[in-house]
């Protein structure tokens, strides 16, 4: 058993357990804390795959920024327990079950019927190099320029949208 394998088991166990704990907590703030732990273990898994940049960005963006905003909103709302929120809202429950089923089917299809190794380079050194900042930057600004710019445009549009919604009248 190599050291990497032990680390893989360690991080995947934390990821799986924290994900289960996250959805079973009645208190939304505790759920948020376990989601942060989950993001960390996934960042660890990226590190094992030598994707240092993605691993750090996972922590900066998800654990460092998005979850802080989540906690901010949760604390401001002072959310009641889930039972009060969901009682008598059967349509939402059915919708949630359908969405969850669809996502599950999609992931199951990807795992069992596609070959995930196809995209990998057989050359180990080349695939390690693919995780560096330089490589990702080069790919983003050459091969994937259009989707990258489209994503940037979408973010800009949503920022302006949020501003307009928050500031009801402009003088």
């Amino acid at each position, binding site marked *: 058993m190599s050291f990497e394998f032990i680390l893989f088991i360690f991080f995947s166990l934390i990821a799986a357990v924290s994900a289960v704990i996250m959805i079973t907590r009645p208190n939304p703030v505790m759920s948020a804390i376990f989601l942060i732990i989950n993001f960390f273990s996934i960042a660890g898994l990226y590190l094992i795959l030598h994707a240092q940049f993605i691993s750090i960005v996972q*922590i900066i963006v998800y654990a460092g920024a998005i979850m802080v905003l989540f906690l*901010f909103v949760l604390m401001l709302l002072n959310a009641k327990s889930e039972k009060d929120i969901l009682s008598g809202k059967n349509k939402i429950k059915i919708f949630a079950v359908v969405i969850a089923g669809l996502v599950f089917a999609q992931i199951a299809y990807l795992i069992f019927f596609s070959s995930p190794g196809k995209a990998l380079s057989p050359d180990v050194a080349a695939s390690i190099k693919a995780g560096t900042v330089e490589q990702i930057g080069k790919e983003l600004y050459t091969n994937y320029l259009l989707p990258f710019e489209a994503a940037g445009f979408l973010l800009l549009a949503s920022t302006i949208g949020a501003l307009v919604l928050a500031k009801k009248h402009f003088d």
Partner: protein
Amino acid sequence: MSPLLQTIIITVVVLLVLMTIAANLIWVERRMLALWQDRLGPNRVGPLGLVQVVADMVKIFFKEDWIPKFADRPVFFIAPTIVIITVLMSFAVIPFAPGISVVNLNVGLLFFLAMSSLGVYSVVLGGWSSNNKYSLLGSLRAAAQMISYEVFMGLSLMGVVILAGSFNLNDIVEAQGRITWFFIPQILGFFVFFLAGIAETHRLPFDLPEAESELISGFHSEYSGMKFGMFFVGEYLGITLISSMIVTLFFGGWLGPSFLPPVVWFLLKMAVFILIFVLLRAALPRPRYDQLMSYGWKFLLPLSLLNLVVTGLVVLLLK
């Protein structure tokens, strides 16, 4: 000497030095503030009051470690440790001298940003778990303040990255040896990073999360004993961290004339910035919260974007 042993020795030495610096900063800050405010400061315990720190430590360790009955116990317990852990982790990537850093990470700068963005959880969770209105207000302020200033902090450093062509802190220091210390071409970036650094460590004048006069110490109102001590030491470690990042990124890190060893140069430059942080506390009043936010988003953000665009353009033209 095997690499593993070397790493362990460096880690232990860095940890010991940092803890000594953080503890003695309490004395330095009190004496300096006293000097600037025309008072005496702590001068009773030992020569010049130097042993005051030991007395404070003994006191804080023996204080009753009280957890309020209405608090969320596990979160209340974890919150103060987060700030210490994240700040100490950040020190792992800082090169104190050629070859003397705990790890030589090629995304070192991003690692620092990631860790400093996690530090906010300490304040936010501490305030929330205290289950107290003032604490909650403090942690809400901290969340909004730190997430805003993180944006400019990251953006202001990208000019340095463009000039050095690397996220590795060792490479950045070496690039400053080749080009020039980056505070000259990156004076705007330095300015923004300095202010964002004060806001990230929530020091005066930007200490709105704890603002004694309005929020009775904000997020740590309910904390006592060593748990409060951890927030306290975490703040001083934070100042040390921001000072050493300023030195590494803008003031040539360990570089300096060769009559002193590189580590001494690094520590000297760091000490200067720590003293500037202390002096700022003595000199400036606290702004209002909306002033802090609009100053950030309406002044520092455009400034750091301008700096980024101009740096990129100049580097591109010179190539």
